[in-house]
């Protein structure tokens, strides 16, 4: 097994008296899809917000490729190669795909000191990314607002890849999608991992998770209660881990 991309050690998050997260140890590896499962309020969202730099942890440390990091903003996390694709995508509906993918870090050439867009290069780069992701979009010049939910996910993923993201966090990427679109986004998720990205997937849909994940981590009441290789567990066991009916979880919760 190769060196993990990111290691989280003893991560805890407290909001005043409320402990949202306690003692989370987790390794995230490149080329692997890691699914985070858990009931509402189990701490999944808090954990990815820490990874994304949106919340600082109250305790513990994050180590990226051997060196500890401290994020004070999502920008810091992005600079370390972590991209988060939120459910409500931060895309500009009135701009084209290429414009969205490059927004904020456009390719430009300077003519008389005025920065002009390298529109052709940006188009080609995005066409290449879309092709690589096998995402078929008939009119790349169309505004993103006219695309379907799945296509928008593809655009958001392109944007993450274009930022040279090493870890892509996907928060419920299929929650608002139709069945056919869901298939496509799941395929995209696999392709991201095949490209060498580490992928963290949050989902409520367990059969979906079994389709794409290599490893499954279950959160319950702010703790990581289980970690399984997807190939070595099954639907029933995961459900019992989430609900707390599994003997391991009972034993763990008794000792705490």
């Amino acid at each position, binding site marked *: 097994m190769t060196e993990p991309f990111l290691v989280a050690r003893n991560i805890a998050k407290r909001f005043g008296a409320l402990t949202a997260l306690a003692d989370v140890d987790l390794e995230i590896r490149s080329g692997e899809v890691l699914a985070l499962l858990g009931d509402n309020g189990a701490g999944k969202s808090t954990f990815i917000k820490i990874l994304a730099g949106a919340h600082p942890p109250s305790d513990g440390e994050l180590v990226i490729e051997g060196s500890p990091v401290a994020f004070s903003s999502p920008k810091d996390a992005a600079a370390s190669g972590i991209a988060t694709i939120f459910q409500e995508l931060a895309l*500009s509906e*009135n701009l084209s795909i290429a414009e969205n993918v490059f927004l*904020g870090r*456009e390719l*430009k050439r300077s003519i008389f000191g005025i920065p002009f867009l390298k529109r052709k290069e940006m188009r080609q780069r995005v066409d290449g990314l879309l092709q690589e992701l096998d995402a078929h979009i008939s009119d790349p010049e169309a505004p993103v607002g*006219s695309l379907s939910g799945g296509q928008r996910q593809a655009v958001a993923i392109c944007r993450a890849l274009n930022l040279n993201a090493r870890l892509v966090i996907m928060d419920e990427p299929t929650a608002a999608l139709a069945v056919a679109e869901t298939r496509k986004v799941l395929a995209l998720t696999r392709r991201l991992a095949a490209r060498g990205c580490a992928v963290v997937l949050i989902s409520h849909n367990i059969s979906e998770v079994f389709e794409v994940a290599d490893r499954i981590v279950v959160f319950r009441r702010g703790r990581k209660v289980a970690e399984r290789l997807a190939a070595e567990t099954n639907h029933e066991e995961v459900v019992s881990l989430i609900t707390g009916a599994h003997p391991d979880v009972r034993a763990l919760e008794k000792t705490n």
Partner: protein
Amino acid sequence: MNAVRQFRNGVISMNGREWSLLVACLLAIVVFAVASPHYATSGNAITVLRNSVELLLIGLGMTLLLAMGGIDVSIGIVMGLAAIAIGRVLGADGNPLLALVVGPLVGALLGCVTAAVVVLGRVPAIVGTLGLLGVYRTAVFVLLGGQWLSGLPATLTNLLAASVLGIPVPALVIASAYLAVWLALRRTPYGLHLLAIGNSEEKARLSGIPVVKVRFMTFVVSGVLTGIAATFYVATYRNVEMSIGSTLALDAIAAVILGGTSILGGRCSLLGTVLGVLLLRILQNGLLLIGVPSLWQPVVTGVLIIGVLGFEAISNRLPLARFQRARA
């Protein structure tokens, strides 16, 4: 297909809205020509174009502001203040170079003031510029001391009524301004950032766009264009009256909205603005010539704004139209 797209993306590309504006302009010209014997003369055509110069320049800036989700209702009085500054320079027998640059300079300065209030002070643009409108109105009155600035020397007039290679200077200036704004909007990161901010300021910020810088700059650009408009105003009329620019903001907003720029931001058409300005000025001139008192001009403008926005609101409520708009 590719050729069509390249044409559509060209400096002058026409969509349905712009074609209908062009047709409306031609239709209005035909109707007025039939109704008034004085209408279809070359002299009147020049009058209409002459009367469009200031509004075209201010309209370009207003297009950027609306596309960004901003607005400036004080823009007419900003032109008034710049005109007073130019008038003072001319009155003091200042050199022509100073007279040429003082307008854009004062415009830029007042653009900074507006930006300070709206962008740095985070006052909503409509409220902030309404407040400035009140302040500037009185400033114009105080600066003019209740009197017109009149009988100004023809220094600027001689410069700006000239022709270069047979093309009148105002046409050259407007064409350059149009090209510059078009390039900035469609070919530079600034244009993308402006449209992204118009779509959603929050998303723009999340995408790493320098929102404050882009918004600030746009108010300054609008101020500079207004200052250039003031220069043409003084060159043409050689006086500054108390009520200067009082209907300009209304006219500019009407022309820009007529042209297909979204009042909510994120979508704009520079060519539409040009056609909107021409239609407005053709209507105002034609109505005057068929005997409608000029008192009624703001009524026409106001009804046009309400009509266009009302029509858009109704057609957007139809699900099909919403889909088509998204595709557009």
